[in-house]
Each structure stands twice: as structure tokens, then as C-alpha cells.
């Protein structure tokens, strides 16, 4: 028998990028919000970058792939039918714990694919409507960057100056300038000066193993302390098994396992799902009942469908000189959007961004760097290692992948997490359009690296451990025929159930989605707050 707790106004599931933002906004308005998170708090002082063996943690507790980490707070993902492996982190802060903090916004055209290019669907809102929420979120997270980028409508002032370029960045800029291509210091959620009680980045390098300096924004150090001070409640090691429903078909609350594996029941007036593009459809599909035999809020049949990753092609240039590429945030922050908008003469619709990535440390270099081409063992080892170490620049080609119903998240019939909850399986194929886009991007990236002085090019046409961005599996739209939720994240067929994470994105853009996901969460929070009297009645 489950232990019961007092009903709350709003119950949020997941304490990552979107759950933190919405909880902060609603608790600010005096709404009683509780959040359940399956992971725990991590003390930034314990991140591996303070230890001598820091690089080895990427093979263990800081591997971005939950299957490789295998921590008890993680759940496994069957990725055998996908060429891209999903990545995520489970903790307070979610995947912002291990992200590189690239923070570009989706661009105006990303909200209007059907109108502009005749593919996929328009979003139920525009860039202009989201803009105030982008700005608010930037202030909360703290963004390094500079205004004046011709690739975007004018933006509000950034919180701190851009990330330093270093020798590696200077070298790459020369390549883009030689070709006359667009480049810009991309917005990064990394402070270059003290801001809001947090320190400036000291250019230590490996953002992906957690930021000791608290310069990189993760929601455990941005939104959460403020939300808790406003009275929000956050329960950790609380793993939700299913969302329960009342006889009238509204959401009633959840059943979750506590740290000791005991089942607990929490009721709420409104339930908000913020478990990412894989965790969210998994939870909905696991929440079956006689009223919802195909999973909760799945009247459209679209829960789990239209899964979008960003396909990543990685192109590495090898240079003669040392580039000091292990100094500075490893995501670097140079972005080029020369090939972002549709030009059908290229043979595909939509486009891609380039992101310049800094060099890797000695262990990662030996194991193959970002393109995963291992340095050979044996007589040639020393020579090849010395040619590569600290002498490479990598361009990540990040392409817009269009929504396709057959790319999906389903429940695995056998695999479960440590509490016995069925685990997700991803089924994904790369479309022809995306493949052509990646080929075009790889050729252009090689050109840029050669213009910067690279004498050798290595390429990986589709990086497997690249499923950072999990999108589209509970999409927004106008009606149950075309979507799971409406323009305010509200499920069409369960009116007190909201979804606010990457699942609701209609299309994926060709930039990292977190800035846009969080802006949407704040936009939805605004709607919930304005309609609180009705929603919480």
C-alpha cells in the first residue's frame, strides 16, 4: 500500500532544464509547487576536474551515455535500433550538469517551416512571442556573448562578454574570414565575469564533467536555489512510476519509488512532465489505465513519435602548430550559420550550423578524439599521437532533422530500471534529406579547416554518442489530430496535464535546444499562472 501525502497545487516531474525554470516561475507567483527528481544533488566541489585522474571519469560516472554510466539513478535506454545513442544525466539540474552550455536560440524561421519551406509544421507561436521569455531565461542562467550578430534579430545585452578564443579559436576565425563566411561567438551559458553570486570561468576546459567553478549554468545552481527560497519543494531520489488518473479522466497525481524503493503516492491539482524527449514518452506510455489503454494523453497516437536528434557530423583538421586547445570551455563557442537557411540548390531543405570544438586531453586524443579514430598501437603510435595531440580543431556539423513519425520512443518489452519500471527503446533512421545535409556540411567544414591551415582532415559522417538533444516525442499543435499538447503545453485529452521539455518541440532547428526549451517552459508557466484560478479550482 502506497504511503499518501498531502495534495499539492502543481507537481513537476524532473528537475532539469525545463522543470527548474517552471518551478521557479510558479513558486514566485505563490503557487505551491513540488518537484520529484530521480537523481540527487551533486556538490560542485566533488566534480572530477579537481582530481588527477579527471579524464578517466568520462569512461565511468561522467560518461554522457546512461547505459555506460549505469548508476542506480539512471535508467537504461535500448539504443540498438538507432545509429545515434541518446545521452542524458540524472540529477538535480538534469543534463545541464554535463552539457557544454551552448546557448543559441532557435531562429525566426525555425518556427515557420510549413509556411517558409513547405515541410513539417509551423509552431503555434513565433520567435517574437517567445522573445521576452528568452530574455528572462538568459538573465536567470547568465549568458556570455555579444549583440550584433547578423544571424539573429537584435537581442538584449548579454550578461557577460564572450568566451575567450585562445590560439585555437583565433586560428579557426582566420579560416572563416578567408572564406567570407559567417561566424560569431555563440551565446554560451558560461560566465566570463562574476554574476549573480557565481564565479567567472577560469578556462579549465572540460565543461562536460561538471563545473567546479559554478561559472557554467546548471539549474541546480541557477534556478533551484531561488525556487526553494520561494517555497518550492524538491524531493530527490523520487522516481515516478506512473501518472494516475481520476474517474473523470483528469490526472490525479503520481506513484513514485523513494530512495528505499518504497512506493509513495503524491496527488496534485496539476501535473507537469519535464523528463526529456525520451523520459517523457516513457512515463506517458507507462501510465496505462482502462481510460487510457495506449498510454496517458495518447489520443493522438503521437506519444513517442517524431523523435528528433540533431545528427552530428564531426570534421577534424590537423595543424602543424600547438593550439592550446585544452584551455578554455571545450565547446569553444564559435558558431557559423552560413548554411542555416534553406537553399534548394544544395540538394536538401533546411540547413545546419557549425560549432567549433576545442581540442581533447591526452587520454581522449589517444582514444580517437572527437571523430573517434583511435591512435594506432605499435611502432607508429608515438608519431601519430604527437601529430594529433593539441594540434586539432574540430567542427561539429549540427543539422536540422525533420520530424518523421517512424522515428520513435517505445517501451522495451524486457529492459527495466532498478525499480523494475519498463525502460525505453529508441527506433531511429536518418532521412535522405539529413544525410545529404550532413554530406554538404562535412565538405564545407573541411573547406573551412583547410582555409584555417589544416593539412589533414578526418571525418566521422554520423557520430554515434551524439544524442544530446531529445525532441519531438509529444509535439505541440492545434488539435489532437496533429499533436499531443496545445500551444501552452497542455495535453489535448488530459486538461490538467502539461508537458514542458524537449518533447513538445514541433521541429528541431539546427542549434542546441536548451535555451528554446527553457524559454518555452517560462512561456507555459506564464500561462499557468494567469489561469491559476481556473486550473487549480
Amino acid at each position, binding site marked *: 500500500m502506497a504511503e499518501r501525502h498531502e495534495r499539492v497545487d502543481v507537481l513537476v516531474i524532473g528537475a532539469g532544464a525545463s522543470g527548474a525554470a517552471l518551478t521557479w516561475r510558479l513558486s514566485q507567483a505563490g503557487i505551491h509547487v513540488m518537484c520529484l527528481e530521480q537523481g540527487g544533488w551533486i556538490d560542485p566541489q566533488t566534480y572530477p576536474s579537481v582530481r588527477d585522474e579527471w579524464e578517466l571519469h568520462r569512461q565511468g560516472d561522467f560518461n554522457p551515455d546512461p547505459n555506460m554510466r549505469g548508476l542506480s539513478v539512471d535508467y537504461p535506454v535500448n539504443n540498438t535500433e538507432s545509429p545515434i545513442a541518446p545521452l542524458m544525466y540524472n540529477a538535480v539540474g538534469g543534463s545541464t550538469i554535463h552539457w557544454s552550455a551552448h546557448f543559441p536560440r532557435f531562429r525566426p524561421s525555425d518556427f515557420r517551416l510549413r509556411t517558409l519551406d513547405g515541410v513539417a509544421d509551423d509552431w503555434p507561436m513565433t520567435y517574437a512571442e517567445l522573445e521576452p521569455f528568452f530574455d528572462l531565461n538568459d538573465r536567470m542562467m547568465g549568458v556570455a556573448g555579444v549583440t550584433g550578430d547578423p544571424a539573429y534579430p537584435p537581442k538584449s545585452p548579454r550578461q557577460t*562578454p564572450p568566451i575567450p578564443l585562445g590560439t585555437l579559436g583565433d586560428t579557426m576565425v582566420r579560416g572563416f574570414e578567408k572564406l567570407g563566411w559567417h561566424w560569431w561567438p555563440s551565446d554560451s551559458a558560461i560566465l566570463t565575469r562574476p554574476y549573480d553570486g557565481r564565479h567567472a570561468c577560469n578556462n579549465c576546459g572540460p565543461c562536460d564533467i561538471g563545473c567546479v567553478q559554478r561559472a557554467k549554468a546548471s539549474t541546480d545552481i541557477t534556478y533551484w536555489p531561488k525556487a526553494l527560497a520561494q517555497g518550492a519543494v524538491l524531493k530527490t531520489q523520487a522516481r515516478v512510476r506512473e501518472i494516475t488518473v481520476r474517474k473523470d479522466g483528469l490526472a490525479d497525481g503520481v506513484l513514485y519509488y523513494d530512495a528505499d524503493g518504497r512506493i509513495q503516492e503524491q496527488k496534485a491539482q496539476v501535473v507537469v512532465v519535464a523528463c526529456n524527449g525520451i523520459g517523457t514518452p516513457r512515463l506517458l506510455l507507462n501510465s496505462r489505465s482502462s481510460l487510457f489503454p495506449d498510454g496517458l494523453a495518447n489520443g493522438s497516437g503521437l506519444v513517442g513519435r517524431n523523435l528528433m536528434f540533431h545528427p552530428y557530423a564531426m570534421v577534424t583538421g590537423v595543424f602543424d602548430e600547438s593550439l592550446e586547445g585544452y584551455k578554455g570551455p571545450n565547446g569553444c563557442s564559435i558558431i557559423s550559420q552560413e548554411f542555416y537557411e534553406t537553399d534548394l540548390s544544395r540538394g536538401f531543405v533546411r540547413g545546419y550550423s557549425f560549432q567549433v570544438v576545442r581540442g581533447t586531453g*591526452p587520454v581522449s586524443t589517444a582514444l580517437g578524439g572527437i571523430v573517434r579514430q583511435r591512435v594506432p598501437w605499435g611502432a607508429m603510435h608515438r608519431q601519430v599521437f604527437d601529430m594529433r595531440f593539441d594540434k586539432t580543431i574540430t567542427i561539429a556539423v549540427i543539422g536540422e532533422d525533420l520530424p518523421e513519425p517512424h522515428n520513435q520512443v517505445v517501451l522495451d518489452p524486457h529492459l527495466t530500471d532498478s525499480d523494475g519500471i519498463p525502460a525505453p527503446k529508441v527506433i531511429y533512421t536518418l532521412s535522405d534529406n539529413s544525410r545529404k545535409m550532413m554530406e554538404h556540411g562535412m565538405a564545407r567544414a573541411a573547406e573551412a579547416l583547410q582555409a584555417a591551415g589544416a593539412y589533414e582532415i578526418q571525418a566521422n559522417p554520423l557520430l554515434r554518442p551524439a544524442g544530446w538533444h531529445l525532441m519531438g516525442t509529444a509535439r505541440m499543435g492545434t488539435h489532437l489530430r496533429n499533436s499531443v499538447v496545445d500551444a501552452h503545453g497542455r495535453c489535448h485529452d488530459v486538461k490538467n496535464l502539461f508537458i514542458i521539455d524537449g518533447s513538445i518541440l514541433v521541429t528541431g532547428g539546427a542549434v542546441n535546444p536548451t535555451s528554446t526549451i527553457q524559454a518555452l517552459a517560462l512561456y507555459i508557466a506564464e500561462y499557468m499562472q494567469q489561469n491559476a484560478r481556473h486550473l487549480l479550482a
Partner: protein
Amino acid sequence: MVETSATTPTFFTSAQRQVMDHVLNRIIPANGAFPGAGSLPVLDYIERVVAPSAPLKRLFTQGLQHLAVVSQRQYGQAFSDLAAEPQDTVLRAVETDRPGFFHALITHTYSGYYSHPTVLALLGMEVRPPQPRGYTLAPFDLSLLDHVKQRQPLYRSP
């Protein structure tokens, strides 16, 4: 490199340790100032990774058995008694026949070697973790953007 502790579980027999030293010196041979991987405590690192893992123990036991079999079959000698070139030939055969073992062997050899202070110093790096000191880089030079700023808007306004 991870600190050795008194409680570290052991796995390799002394005979296996001897073979592994030879193997490691062929995977990363000594070259100039750089020592071979068998001359640094890389094997101790590998043992710390392998000992607690049943699947890795199985891979290494079977992999080393196969290495011995191939040495005897091709050269009629133990691996440790072979010269460098035939040792490489044997290792290439094992790489083909036992890819799982070989992948683990390479991964953990490289990891142990390239996290060792001796190697980091030879690479010209400061022998310390990235934090708390970090590194110093010159601030972003905003004048670099003057040229890009002059471009027409690159985005479409629907």
C-alpha cells in the same frame, strides 16, 4: 593516475603480469624520452579496472590464453620469448580474433599511460588537474567582429 591503495584487488597471476609487460611495451613502445607502457605502472592501473569487473576478467583471461596459443602455434615459443616483430604479428592476430579483448586492452592501456604524471610532463603539460587553477586566456577581442557585423541580416523574418 588513480592512487594505488592497499585494498586494491589483484587479478593477474605473476606469469600473466610478465606477459602483459611485454604486451604493453608493444602497444606503446618506448620512443625517445617516452617510456614504453610496460615500464610505467600502467598494468597496475589496468588491474584496478579489470579486477572488480566479471566481464572484463573473462575477456582478459580468454584473451591472454588466446595470445599464448597463437604464439605457440605460429612460432613455437612463448610470447615473452619472441622478438618485437613476431610479437606484433601475434598481437595483430589477437586483435582480429578477439576484438572485444583487444579493444579493452587498448582503451585501458592508453588511459593508464596518458594519465600518468611522467607522460603528462613529457607532453609539456602542467602535471595537475584542470581545477582549481584553470588556465589563462586573453579576453575575446570584440574588434574581430567588425567585418561580420557589416553583413546583411542572414535570417529570414517570416
